[in-house]
């Protein structure tokens, strides 16, 4: 019998971090306010007390410094897991991530590995001020040398953070912050899949919805509503935005013939764009309609009182489903 425990996504990440740290003393964790406070979302709560100041520590408010020193520590044989406090604060570290971290293994011809995990709470829906609600994953998915993943439920959160830490490549770990307190069962014995494998969460026959991170719950909600109306939606949780598991998507599209890709990020040159382009290449003769994207508008993330309109909801997904079925 598998050992299932009910916990939130935030607690599941915390439990995954704790397990990884207790198994490998080369793992060090740092970021802004992650020690005594446990981070602004309390994801690292208790870890400073448990593992001590040398393994879990606060940094100066200097994001380039956080990632740059993580690179140096990785060169020394450590496995740093760093936190960027909010999505919108990652850009001071953008240089270190894209010009240094992502390229180091390739430019050193494999003599240096970069087992660095960058944890980033991302996405909107929490009524926050500017720069606290963004979805910057496409910048990193576009950059060769990085792996980019996002869990949508506690079981994935628990296992994927451990898989990210175990990887010898740099991993951008995007945490769906508005779903941090969503609870679900965690199987403490066995991982559901590898961290780059997409999963079919809901089987259906009319239209496939491919999504990831915070929008997975929205897509499930859309599938429930559609079912009441007699439409059968298949929901795929991509789990990984780089690399993308196209096999799972294409297998679904071969069955449904229609695909809607949903994400909070603005559509233009997005992960959704890549899914749409590639599925057209890989499954052209199986498509009954063009792949449609449902995403944030191509505007700066709006003030909080407008975010409900900016963020795609179940109705926006269903509107795209209607359009796909109308072809």
């Amino acid at each position, binding site marked *: 019998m598998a050992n299932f425990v009910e916990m939130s996504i935030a607690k599941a990440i915390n439990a995954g971090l704790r397990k990884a740290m207790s198994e490998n003393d080369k793992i060090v964790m740092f970021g802004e306010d992650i020690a005594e406070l446990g981070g602004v979302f309390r994801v690292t709560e208790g870890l400073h007390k448990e593992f001590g100041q040398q393994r879990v520590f606060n940094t100066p408010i200097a994001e380039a*410094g956080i990632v*740059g020193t993580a690179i140096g520590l990785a*060169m020394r044989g*450590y496995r*740093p897991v760093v936190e960027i406090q909010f999505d919108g604060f990652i850009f001071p570290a953008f240089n270190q991530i894209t010009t*240094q971290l992502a390229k180091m293994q390739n430019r*050193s011809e494999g*003599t240096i590995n970069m087992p660095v995990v960058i944890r980033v709470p991302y996405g909107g829906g929490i009524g926050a001020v500017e720069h606290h609600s963004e979805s910057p994953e496409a910048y990193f998915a576009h950059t060769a040398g990085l792996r980019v993943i996002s869990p949508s439920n506690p079981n994935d959160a628990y296992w994927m953070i451990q898989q990210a830490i175990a990887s010898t490549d740099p991993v951008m770990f995007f945490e769906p912050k508005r779903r941090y307190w969503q609870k679900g069962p965690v199987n403490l014995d066995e991982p559901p899949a590898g961290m780059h494998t997409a999963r079919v969460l809901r089987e259906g026959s009319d239209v496939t919805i491919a999504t990831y991170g915070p929008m997975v719950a929205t897509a499930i909600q859309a599938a429930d509503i559609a079912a009441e109306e007699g439409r059968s939606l298949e929901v795929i949780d991509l789990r990984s935005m780089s690399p993308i598991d196209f096999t799972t998507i294409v297998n679904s599209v071969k069955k449904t013939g229609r695909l809607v890709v949903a994400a909070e990020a603005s559509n233009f040159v997005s992960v959704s764009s890549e899914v749409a382009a590639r599925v057209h290449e890989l499954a052209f003769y199986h498509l009954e309609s063009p792949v449609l994207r449902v995403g944030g508008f191509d505007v700066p993330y709006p003030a909080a009182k407008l975010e409900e309109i900016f963020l795609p909801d179940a109705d926006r997904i269903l509107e795209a489903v209607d359009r796909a079925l109308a072809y």
Partner: protein
Amino acid sequence: MVQLLSPEGEYSVAPQYAEYAKLVQELSEADFLRFYRDMARIRRFDFEANALQRQGQLGLWIPAIGQEAAQIGSGYAVGHNDHIFPSYREHGVAITHGIDLMSILKMLRGVNHGGWNADETRFHLYAIVLGTQTLHATGYAMGVKFDGKVGTGNPAEDQAVITYVGDGATAEGEVSESFIFAANNQVPLVYFVQNNQWAISSPTHTQTRVPLFQRGTGFGVPGIRVDGNDVLACYAVTKKHMDEARAGNGPFLIEALTYRIGAHTSSDDPTKYRDSEEVEYWKARDPLVRLEKFLRRQGIGQDFFDEVEAAGEKLSEEIRSATFALKNPPAQNMFNYVYSEQHPLIEEQLAWLEAYEASFGDQSHLAVADPSQIPNIGSVH
């Protein structure tokens, strides 16, 4: 400013610098001769590389002429447990730690991005994005401290880290962030700032209102200025502060005041932004000439200088023939080590390229180069 050799090659010690002079007194004549040989070797290498660039053999050349004392002096002061995080002009430092000169030429020809093993040589890859390496050095030094390899008192155990940065790069925000992390964690790190007075076309006062050796002070990183054209002073100052870093005294900054006699790179034209009188002034303070004068005062005869000259001729020939023998890398090299673990996009694109190139038969760019055909001429005689 710490100076032990005057431009005329006279050795004299101001009382406040006696602690540095003590370290020079521990050197032998053989060490002085080694400094000269390597400074002359790297100067010769520089001239030859510049010529190779002009002949189209290199994509770019980055001259270090005028900075040989700063590089050879500091390089030899770095211990054999220490790690070095260079910028991109540290060819002199490179040869003091076993980097094959052809590795540098391969990189500037475009064969690879450096290719030497940083773990084995302790000399990390060149950093092209200015200042990024200071944070890697800081993180590395944090790791040294976590490992308990600081202040044990056992010279075989203790380690320090040195990072090289130019006057221009000190303005990068990441350098300031590195000062904060280094000072807060009291890591064993020395910043060796080569102030060659020009960041491409911008003089140092574009980057700073205060002397650069004071740049770290407010962050908790004390500093000192050394005559960067005085190899003995550069050696002694670096040695002392690397020793102190290893002993657990925290980070320190050395500003070596020198001058970039040549262009920023082979793409640059310094006549557009600086006077020839300024260049002539600094040529009269040439670090190699200064050391030669010192050695002659020490009674070193013409035979030695003739021997160095002959070694330079030989080096030039070796470099030229080794460069001409360089082959283009096989095309699949670009796919190597993008990830250390399996990645479907890389596999898919490499498979596509293999099929595409195969359609060209003998003209395929995927032909594997024979590594034995690439000469390795070694770094130090």
